[in-house]
């Protein structure tokens, strides 16, 4: 993993004059989905690329070591071997980017992946006290997680306490140490797109390596308008400081067609440099099976049954 973002001093003038026009962003979101369609072998290639961006996620109350093990194995071998051979991509090392689990399950995941050498991020969600969140981060890093996804305190955004938000994320940064920090903005609960932009900027200024839309378990997760605003914030931060910050949408991305639209969005707004697992992730669980079905159809020309493809 590349060196992480050191962050900058808090400069509120970067966010004081920003305006985001909601209907215009909605219109842009519709356009992107309609205007960049990819077909045939290019579609298969894009789908394989999308697989390498997936953070395979399981955040359920009933996770145990058995389903974590299955998940980790699926992360190592996301597409069936013979399909990859048919596309001549079996030796390119196609795996998912990471595996995303609750802090308590980090040990199981590390054990399951020991041979594979994949990274393991930890998600810690909820409006818990700052102290408990920091403690969870430290425990997860001790257990072997190399990426941490933390949720910010939404009330700070809604009441406009930007300095407090900056300080909080700075503390996450310190607690993470060398691990990668993904700041979850919980955009569904931030109210307006202008707040989303401001929160993104503050998160990047404070030293996040990635900004993430949501945990994936809320009512409103990753939507295109929100993503457009966050990507514009990432681009503006890059223009101001030269640091490239990553982006991760999570939640609600279920079909292969959606994933292609997300790839087009990042390509349009930020360019090809961001289409790398170091700078772009998709937090999803059922997406991988849909992609695998599309690849199966592309290779064989037939639609797969449920039992044809290995479970994750």
């Amino acid at each position: 993993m590349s060196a992480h973002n050191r962050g900058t001093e808090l400069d509120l003038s970067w966010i004081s004059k920003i305006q985001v026009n909601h209907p215009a962003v909605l219109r842009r979101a519709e356009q992107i989905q309609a205007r960049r369609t990819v077909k045939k072998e290019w579609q298969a290639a894009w789908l394989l690329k999308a697989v390498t961006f997936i953070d395979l996620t399981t955040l359920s109350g009933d996770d145990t070591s058995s389903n974590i093990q299955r998940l980790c194995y699926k992360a190592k071998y996301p597409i069936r071997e013979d399909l990859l051979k048919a596309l001549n991509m079996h030796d390119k090392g196609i795996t998912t980017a990471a595996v995303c689990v609750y802090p308590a399950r980090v040990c199981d995941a590390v054990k399951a992946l020991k041979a594979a050498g994949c990274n393991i991020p930890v998600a810690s969600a909820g409006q818990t006290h700052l102290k408990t969140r920091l403690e969870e981060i430290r425990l997860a890093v001790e257990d072997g997680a190399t990426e941490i996804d933390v949720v910010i305190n939404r009330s700070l955004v809604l009441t406009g306490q930007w300095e407090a938000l900056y300080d909080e994320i700075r503390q996450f940064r310190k607690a993470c140490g060398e691990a990668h920090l993904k700041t979850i903005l919980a955009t569904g609960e931030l109210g307006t797109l202008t707040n989303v932009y401001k929160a993104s900027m503050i998160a990047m200024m404070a030293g996040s390596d990635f900004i993430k839309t949501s945990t994936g378990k809320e009512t409103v997760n990753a939507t295109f308008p929100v993503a457009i605003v966050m990507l514009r914030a990432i681009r503006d931060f890059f223009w101001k400081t030269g640091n490239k910050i990553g982006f991760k949408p999570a939640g609600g991305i279920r079909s292969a067609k959606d994933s292609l639209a997300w790839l087009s969005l990042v390509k349009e707004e930020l360019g090809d440099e961001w289409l790398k697992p170091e700078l772009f992730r998709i937090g999803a669980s059922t997406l991988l099976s849909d992609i695998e079905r599309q690849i199966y159809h592309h290779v064989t020309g037939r639609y797969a049954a449920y039992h044809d493809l290995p479970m994750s």
Partner: protein
Amino acid sequence: MAATRAGPRAREIFTSLEYGPVPESHACALAGRGDPEAPAAAVDPGIPGDWAGCSRGVIGLILPPTFSFLEMMWRICPALAVGCTVVALVPPASPAPLLLAQLAGELGPFPGILNVLSGPASLVPILASQPGIRKVAFCGAPEEGRALRRSLAGECAELGLALGTESLLLLTDTADVDSAVEGVVDAAWSDRGPGGLRLLIQESVWDEAMRRLQERMGRLRSGRGLDGAVDMGARGAAACDLVQRFVREAQSQGAQVFQAGDVPSERPFYPPTLVSNLPPASPCAQVEVPWPVVVASPFRTAKEALLVANGTPRGGSASVWSERLGQALELGYGLQVGTVWINAHGLRDPSVPTGGCKESGCSWHGGPDGLYEYLRPSGTPARLSCLSKNLNYDTFGLAVPSTLPAGPEIGPSPAPPYGLFVGGRFQAPGARSSRPIRDSSGNLHGYVAEGGAKDIRGAVEAAHQAFPGWAGQSPGARAALLWALAAALERRKSTLASRLERQGAELKAAEAEVELSARRLRAWGARVQAQGHTLQVAGLRGPVLRLREPLGVLAVVCPDEWPLLAFVSLLAPALAYGNTVVMVPSAACPLLALEVCQDMATVFPAGLANVVTGDRDHLTRCLALHQDVQAMWYFGSAQGSQFVEWASAGNLKPVWASRGCPRAWDQEAEGAGPELGLRVARTKALWLPMGD
């Protein structure tokens, strides 16, 4: 042509066509029949239902070399829905209209409601001068529109012009700059915009906006239209040549040209182009911006933005990008264009009127205004009278025939000659001469001034000076002044009636005329007060306002008959809606109008109404050729009407000419009817997308 009798039946049948369901269902809903599922669009309450009575007949439609299918449907469907039949002339190599005509031809008992000819531009004058055509709807370049206007002067067909393709985008410093950049892409570099774009950026956000714009241009992709992954296609070799010439000239005049995007290098494809630092005085800045060029210029304040934006002859469409509601509305109301979008660009809907003003022509499509293009008020003749071809435009009204001295005066010596009523007071004419006015028994009634070109110039200037203040008044304030004038007229009833008597009217009729004039003044004042801004809810989240704005300076040449009533009937609606007027009163008896001026001198602000007497043809010539008169109404001779129509090609002012047909001014339908209300103001559609 035989299908014109089919009228209403054709409407019903056409609704069953699959093509273009949205435009024609809207048109049917507005025309008062048909589809109950179509959202009922609110019609201006000032126009009563019987206006929608009569369709015009055969419409000749001329489409430009690059037209979109939707534009074509939006012009054809309303015409068919109200019962007109259409003959369309389309450029060669466009199969879509031909296919549409084939479908229309399969509609059973009415073949011939839609006829399509595919041919070069040289067929345009031939089509326009066909004897059966009642109205020509021309859509295309301004120069061709002008030429068509000149050649159709005096012909049987009316002309509606929709010219020009350029639009405007105003970016203030309180805007969402990224979204405004997307607006620029929608306007100029997607296939939804018809032409180029003038971009006005506030100086404080100039660098930011230019950087984002250039970055965004790098991501555009151009290619064949049917490729699903491109933003824009090509517009043909002619458009490519035009833009290459423009860019070369712009570079030679010192502008900076930036081009980017993933574009094939073959001929008809041209990359998206951004031109900046083009000096406003350069010749390139005077012509229309071609596709796919965006010409960017800075401005300092919102007021300067309005001056720069209104400082071109183009008046098509514009968008204002600002997150401050007050500023956005101020700019939206101040721009002299037909359509304004706030924080959006290029939104269109068939239920919203789309048109322009100034050099963009004044014909409309969509909404109620689009339907009125194809209707005529019930009671007016179906055919306009066709006029002489031998009118010499260079000499018409040029020289004023000299009037001989009046001869020995009989009876009490008349009052000293009236001056011209310009700028709120009576002034002596530039030529320092007067002409005698005789009454019905041949005796001398009085002397009036002989106005000339200089006086017209002064009158139009005075009217322009008074216009901003008058248009800025609320309708209630304007109504109050009109009522005050009505009261003054009534106080003067005996003088006016006696003058009318001398002109040959009976005393009772004269008094009735004066009373009717006062009533009309009051009625127009009340009508404009009661009129609100119709809200149209288009296929959009948010309202669309249909504003009725004053035209500007209106020139009116009054008819000879009804010297008082016609004068007041024309003055009242023009003033009520916020215009200022320059009037040439009845040539037979201008004294009535001048009596009214004596009251106007005390009641009205200076310059509101200006009355110039003199030789009617000469004054008509001066007014018709004046580039700063926004509209002209002519109720004189047939020859004069033809000249007025010909001369209006200069600044493409809307013209209403009587063609020598008398009008019954005492009838409500003709003297104070809805047609006056429609012609006296222009429409603007203000789009307000909502959401946060």
